[in-house]
């Protein structure tokens, strides 16, 4: 996943806060996924309002040293359709 891409949470996904982070449920695929930290929750829910993934990571306060781990997790969420590329800046 490119740091400069523009992404958003899928409109079919609901997020439910939990003590360890959050549950994300995709109503279309019926997939339940666990976001295992508060930062991850902030990144995912923040994507839509940020121009890029980089901005969402920074805004959620994720230290740069952890970005690669977060990118991997975002990749997995993208594979499962939990987050989607945003049309407005799709080419970025």
């Amino acid at each position, binding site marked *: 996943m490119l740091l400069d891409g523009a992404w958003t949470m899928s409109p079919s996904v*609901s997020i*439910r806060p939990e*003590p*360890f982070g959050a549950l994300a*449920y995709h*109503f279309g695929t*019926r*997939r339940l996924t666990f976001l295992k930290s508060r930062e991850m929750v902030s990144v995912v829910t923040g994507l839509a309002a940020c121009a890029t993934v980089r901005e969402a990571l920074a805004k959620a306060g994720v230290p740069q040293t952890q970005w690669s781990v977060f990118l991997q*997790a975002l990749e997995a969420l993208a594979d499962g359709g939990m987050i989607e590329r945003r049309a407005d800046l799709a080419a970025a």
Partner: protein
Amino acid sequence: MTTVHDRPTASVPSRPRGGSLVQQFEYGLDAPICLTWELTYACNLACIHCLSSSGKRDPRELSTEQCEAVIDQLQAMQVFYVNIGGGEPTIRPDFWHLLEYAVSHQVGVKFSTNGVRITPERARFLASTDYVDVQVSLDGATADVNDRVRGEGSFDMAIRALENLSAAGFADAKISVVVTRENVDQLDLFKALADRHGATLRLTRLRPSGRGADVWDELHPTASQQRTLYEWLLRAGENVLTGDSFFHLAGFGESLPGLNLCGAGRVVCLIDPVGDVYACPFAIHDQFHAGNVLSPGGFGAVWKDSELFADLRSPQTSGACTKCEFFDSCRGGCMAAKFFTGLPLDGPDPECVQGYSEPALLQIGRTIPAAGQDHSRSARRPTGPTPLEIAPPSGPPVHACAESPLAGFTVPRP
């Protein structure tokens, strides 16, 4: 025996930070992820192993308005879907209304049925809705094996429902099978049957709950069948749903996919037809009763504040099991199975594959707790060890929504 209430609660351990999901689940979630809601005790069948001893409607069953209020609350709590069962839920006159009500309130529905009301027309309606999953119960891959347990004609009824669903274009129905001594040799046949109907196979464990207690001794798979099942799951179990049914088989060596944890009161619970909330659909008994949805605060308050649930939301003591090398994946097995076979909750599962529960099961005077409720239409068979012989089912056949609380649930990779 040790009960959940007897456990020391003086120092309630607090939730660890980080750690595995199973560890997090041990401490419970803010709302269930596997909520079973039995809408009615009424049923057109009379399966001999029915976990909820269904048959007759209970006059106190929740009204349409009360059910809607429960759904509103589930929506507010973000319970993303419910597993609806019974009895036979589709014979409630307001079933289709409640289904639409739930779906339009962001509460997806998976419902279990014996197929009685899945007409071509209903099948088309179901195919046109999003967020609805249908699970047809079948306990034999052939009519003779199935009908012995579920009653005359029930095999044909289920197959007709599956055919109607696939003809209507309903994708991916589930065929839900309770694995018994009689059908464990038919696993390949079940798989083929599911494939033929474009359906997914779901296998669940026979638990000694409800009328299941009456037949458990003679119907639960033998020790060698447990191994057959375990090997089959390892070999062919990919794309077969099992939920939390078989984690006790981890004692054979390898842990199986699915959730390896008793989720009762932590991520699992049951709302019964009269609104009573229990820790698990297989644990309908006073001892696991947490409250009622009609009390002030409704379901949300029960889930959050019940003392029983608070008690269950901590690592449980596991007695002899802790010394077992397979404890990490088996965790002593199923609480309900222990309880309803009269075994201590902090010891091995009655089907412990290492054989550690055998002495206790053979003990004379093992007391089997009386059922919490009984809505059977005819007299139940006496509980307790029965001779190893399959008696023909007594009384009219009925359904069992063989609910496994976590069937269908997969833990995604982090």
